[in-house]
């Protein structure tokens, strides 16, 4: 099958039951999305499929449309060409171990796509499905507000 990953067409020849996460990581070498739990409890594997944040550990590649558009953290922005959410994450120095941050950033970017001025309750509700064990939450809250402002002013 074919997927469009970060703007590039990619061929996959795998078991259709394989979760997108493992197709990305071990077949295509796209390791930004992380494995944390495998049961949609931590959100470290979050990517965008056709513009929506999904848990890639739960989406079997066989269930995806041929040519589906997948964006991972690497496709959101890169050092030197950062997305506003990544800029805010760097300004606030959110990351500690950083392992969950790919998923946090992808979830936050999707939240701001849908709502460019989320209030505290919305941020708490949406982001609570993404687990961080280091406890970076205070700066996640702050960085989302900074990113929202950047996007509104852009």
């Amino acid at each position, binding site marked *: 099958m074919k997927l469009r990953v970060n703007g590039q067409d990619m061929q996959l020849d*795998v*078991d259709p039951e*394989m*979760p997108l*996460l*493992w197709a990305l*990581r*071990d*077949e295509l*070498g796209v*390791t*930004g*999305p*992380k*494995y*944390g*739990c*495998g*049961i949609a*409890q*931590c959100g*470290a594997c979050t990517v965008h499929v056709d513009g929506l944040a999904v848990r890639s550990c739960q989406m079997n590649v066989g269930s995806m449309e041929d040519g589906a558009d997948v964006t*991972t*953290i*690497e496709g959101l*922005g*890169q*050092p030197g060409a*950062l997305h506003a959410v*990544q800029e805010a994450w*760097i300004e606030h*120095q*959110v*990351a*500690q*171990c*950083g*392992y*969950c*941050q*790919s998923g946090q*950033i992808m979830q936050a970017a999707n939240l701001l796509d849908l709502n460019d001025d989320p209030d505290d309750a919305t*941020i*708490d*509700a949406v*982001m*609570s*499905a*993404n*687990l*961080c*064990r*280091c*406890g*970076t*939450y*205070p*700066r*996640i*809250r702050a960085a989302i507000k900074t990113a929202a402002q950047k996007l509104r002013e852009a």
Partner: protein
Amino acid sequence: MGAVKTIARRSFLIGSAAIMGGVAFGTYMAARPIANPLEDGLAEGEAAFNPYVKISSDGITLITPRADKGQGSYSIQAHLIAEELDIDPNSATITPGAPGPAYYNGAVLSEGVPIPAYVETQVAETARAFMAVPAKLFEMQMTGGSSTVPDMFVKLRLAGAVARETLKEAAARQLGVSRSELTTRDGIVVAPDGQELAYTALAAEAAKLEPVVMQEADLRPASEWRILGKPFQRTDIVAKSTGTEVYGIDLQLEGMRYAAICANPGIGGALESYDASAAEGMRGVEKIVEVKAGNAGVAVIATNSWYAFRAVEAIECVWGTPDYPGNSSEHWEALEASIDSEAHFDHRQRNEGDVEVSLASATPFEAEYRAPYLAHAPMEPMNAVVQIGEDRIDIWTGTQIPLFIRNRAAAIAGMDNDAVHVHVLPMGGSFGHRLEMTHIEQAVEIAMAMPGTPVKLTWSREEDMSHDYPRPAALMRGRGVVADGKVDTFDISVCQQGLAGPWMGRLTGLTLGGPDATITTGSWDQPFGIPNYRVTGYRAPDLVPVSSWRSVGASTNGFFHDTFLDELIHEAGADPLEERIRLCIHDESRKVLEAVGELSGWDGADMGEGRGRGVGFCMSFGVPCAEVIEVTQTEAGLRLDKAYVVADVGQALDPVNLEAQLYGGLIFGLAHAINSELTYENYRPAQVNYHAYEGLRLYQTPQIEVKVLENAGRVRGVGEPSLPPAAPALGNAIFAATGQRIREMPFNKFIDFA
């Protein structure tokens, strides 16, 4: 090769332990200098001034040997070197380098000295310094115990200074001027006439010189610092915000295969038999391997981790019984049978006044406390890539104990220690999990089944949580007496199994005798003066194997000691904060308590109907830390509104990351105080993934304010000390708001949280 030969004679003389060992103790082994490990791999024209700085015409490399689990250790180590070397740390290559004995941790064992951290007498300091000797002899290149900054504070600045002065010496000879006439900035030596010579251009000449000798007194005073103490960007922050940081689990090598394992969920239990026929024909499966090292089990090597996970699930295993009781209730019975029992007495490092007389003369207030087993559960599960060559083994992994891994891998493969090359990669958290190595042992044995091919073993989350060596469960019994509105007698017994000895034994084969300080760390050593004051540790029999969990003994003892103190203060009718301040016998700790009162606007624990605040205090790893938490009882459950953290770290070297560590420790403490426990059923933990082991999520996280004090004389590490006060501060707040005293973690067994 002239330069290489010259510097090969150099040895590593920087560092307090070499000097201390020789002068103060005269121990030949401890005094013997350790060769600079960087000298082995030097190219022509490349200079390694010490084990921490390497410069060639291509660039500057800083070696940061303490592992980064997320606490920012690479960054602070680079900042310490760069401060004296005069470079922008972000302009250098930063690498942990190859592990080696030169990188032993001279500070990590000093916590084990039976003198409280607030005592800074000559005897205490000598005893702490002496602990560097065994650390050196046992080649303890170890990251843990909030020791990176205390251990490296002088070492790494000296390393930077030696390199800088040696580069200046090379420039001085080239220019025909004296070294003292030269200055440095941003990787450049500047001559009196303004001429600039880049460090990289001086490397080849500098490599021929003996490194300039520098002393601690030669280091720049804090008033001249340009990096340390200033808000600075973490060296890994861009990579971690763009998905480009390569953790152990992300490493990709040519031809690599992927492995998964199912091991006996009872730790240490045998694999009796197995049937892998259903797995054999599955897509992507290349090999099935029986594993004996680490925890026994069966592994699958496949072309994708998911194929390996799926195949492993299809293997039927018959497990042997491990050597501990199968169910949690039996573990608690073992603790109950051991506490206050003479046969299980381990140590009593605090015994002031006459506790027995006081308890006999009044009706003591009594209470019993419990803290459960806990998994570390870092976001990145355990993993390792191992490649077995004909005469070498390469291991790529995130670890806190690279030399212990090296030695064990060599033993499993039947090679020399020197044949094992450990490449340490950044870690997606650890909290102590990566102080163990069963996954490495398994990975080595698995890779031996496919020589020449790099094989990456990844534990599934379920495998990770069921083979974690947990934080020990602990039981406390307290007795106290109050008189005249004051706490008069405080007597607690704490019981858990031994931690340090069994850990050392399984990792190194060495036997540690004597008492196990971790049983009462965080309660016996608190800076309070109570007329009758006693803390006794009882050692339960070995149950499920346990290990260090962020803040170790203080994670349970902080809860026990401070909550019981809060109970007695309440019995006495005193104000929780004022009475702690009155009892405190240590200036820096008292100032921390006063500051948290000021920061939180403390005017009593009662905040009106359904609201309350609690204070918690613990001094751990030499850092006094006080926290105040405010809560409200709502219809949806108890809500955490605000939290305040104050800690005295001696010297704030990296204020942005320091703040993150302090609130991170608080959140980690709350996560487990509220929501998490491991219980055992049929020898295995009942909680094996995050749905059953929640941690804290954003919606439960209070607003947090952090304040750092710098009154204490010495620099301290901050990865752990803000954790122990979190549970007592919350429990004390719940009591203030609701009248309900919770004496067992996790609290959600007793009260609903919003």
